């Protein structure tokens, strides 16, 4: 169980660690962007229709209950090893919080506000864009934030199907338990994943502050 002391391990594997960190971070952000776009668009399409909203949430919630390892394993034979499986499977997980909060947010807009928007001559699309989306935005953003945390964790697990990020370190540590540097790998991988999650969270606090309409800030 001997290996390098942790600081020396960090400097020795500096290149690998930074590379893993970058890939993990960027991949998480890409997937989050796609999940956000798809989730919000889907939400905007179904929120007025109770049945469609319930059906789409139900479908994604079912997906959500299946362990990610199982789904990765299921899709590798179809979509291949690596990002081909990793990106779509993780995106599907990331959709649920965004979709659910988009629907909830859009439906939470006060009916009197909507009635007066219609009453003064705003069309359906304009009401969605200028009234409903800005008012639902804090709720939608909360969903995106949850989705972001989820995705960072899932990208680590996706190392199992060959998605190269910080998960590699963690899996390697598990597989070679007791070997040289495995403890270092585990600690470094965990810390870096946590840092990515915290960075994303900090970014959300910033985005929330900048993008929440001033009239809604409490």
């Amino acid at each position: 169980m001997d290996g390098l002391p942790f600081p020396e391990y960090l400097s020795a594997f500096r290149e690998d660690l930074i590379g893993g960190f970058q890939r993990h971070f960027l991949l998480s952000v890409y997937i989050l962007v796609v999940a956000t776009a798809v989730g919000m668009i889907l939400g905007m399409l179904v929120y007025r229709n109770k049945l469609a909203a319930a059906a789409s949430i139900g479908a994604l919630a079912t997906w959500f209950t299946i362990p990610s390892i199982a789904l990765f394993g299921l899709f590798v034979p179809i979509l291949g090893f690596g990002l081909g499986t990793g990106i779509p499977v993780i995106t599907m997980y990331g959709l649920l919080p965004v979709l659910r909060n988009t629907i909830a947010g859009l439906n939470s807009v006060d009916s009197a506000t909507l009635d007066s928007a219609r009453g003064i001559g705003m069309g359906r699309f304009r009401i969605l864009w200028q009234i409903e989306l800005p008012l639902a935005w804090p709720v939608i953003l909360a969903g995106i934030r949850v989705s972001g945390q989820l995705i960072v964790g899932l990208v680590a697990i996706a190392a199992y199907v060959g998605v190269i990020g910080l998960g590699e370190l963690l899996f390697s540590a598990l597989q070679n338990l007791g070997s040289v540097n495995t403890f270092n790998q585990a600690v470094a991988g965990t810390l870096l994943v946590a840092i990515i999650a915290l960075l994303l969270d900090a970014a959300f606090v910033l985005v929330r502050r900048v993008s929440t309409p001033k009239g809604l800030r409490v």
Partner: protein
Amino acid sequence: MSESAATTTEPTTRPSGEREAGGVPIVLDGVTKKYPGTDSAAVDDIHLDIAPGDIVMLVGPSGCGKTTTMRMINRLIEPTSGRILIDGEDVLSLNDVKLRRTIGYVIQQIGLFPHLTIESNVSMVPKLLGWDKARIATRVEEMLSVVGLDPAEFAHRYPRQLSGGQQQRVGVARALCADPPIMLMDEPFGAVDPITRTKLQDEFLNLQQRLHKTIVFVTHDFDEAVKMGDKIAVLDKGSRIAQYASPEEILTSPADDFVSGFVGHGATLKRLQLERLDSLDLHPADVAEQGVEPLPMRSTLHDVLDAMIADGLDAVQVVDDGHIVGTVTLEDLLGRVRELRAEADARTGGAASESRPGATPGTTPDPELEAGQRKDDPT
């Protein structure tokens, strides 16, 4: 109010140099709304002629279809059948979204956009209509002043920073901003406290004297209807019009038991709220006792009676412009009430007295005979 309806906007100085558009007529012709799966229509074959520049009050018990009727005018609810003509044009043939930009809309819950400033709220319709920025800015400032809000103080605030009364002022400013000829108002002053409500009502009536919009105003409060309306449509279930007449006429000669039930107690007292001192010939000033606060000329007869009862007097002095101009006595008031009753009977040919509450069939005197007796009254 009703006298002023026909006149055009007086030339007040307007910062924007624009003249307000006066009202246009609205005709509801056999308008019906039936929701699928219901037996009876929410609005059943309503016919209503609304004169330009009038405030028409739709009043009735909850569920009578008054709001549905109003919301069909700007097609927030699509009629099942019938025609709605605004200035002669059938609204069902127009684009509904564009139609609504030409009709002011004020609701009880106000419905300001909470994420937008007061300025953005008020300017929404002109923006939809594509006005240029400078014109919108001038107009918003003007409208905020019109509803009694200082633009410098309020333009950049958000709705939640305003009181309920102030918010509804913004609601009215938003509805008026693009200068629509028609306003639809659904219990607009129903959610504010009584003092603020009275104030908003008075201010709105003053405003309307200048604007002459055609206004359809929904309320369940008959006193509000009497105060605000040029005409009142008393509606029963299915928007059946029980009576469509001036407040004076409804108070003095309700068409049937439903209307008199809705008018409630004290119809004569309410009627006195509609009469002002200038409808009486005053006695010389020396009759009244000294030391009692004189009443201004614009007081209603209701105020006068109230003052007399409060002080236990049968005469009070009247001032106009700070000068005592005469005295009014209790006998003057009673005489005026008799006159009004006689006028109403003459107008309806005595028919009203037939259906007056308390009058039972068989004991009703011959209408003509009764009218004749009234004429002989020494009023």
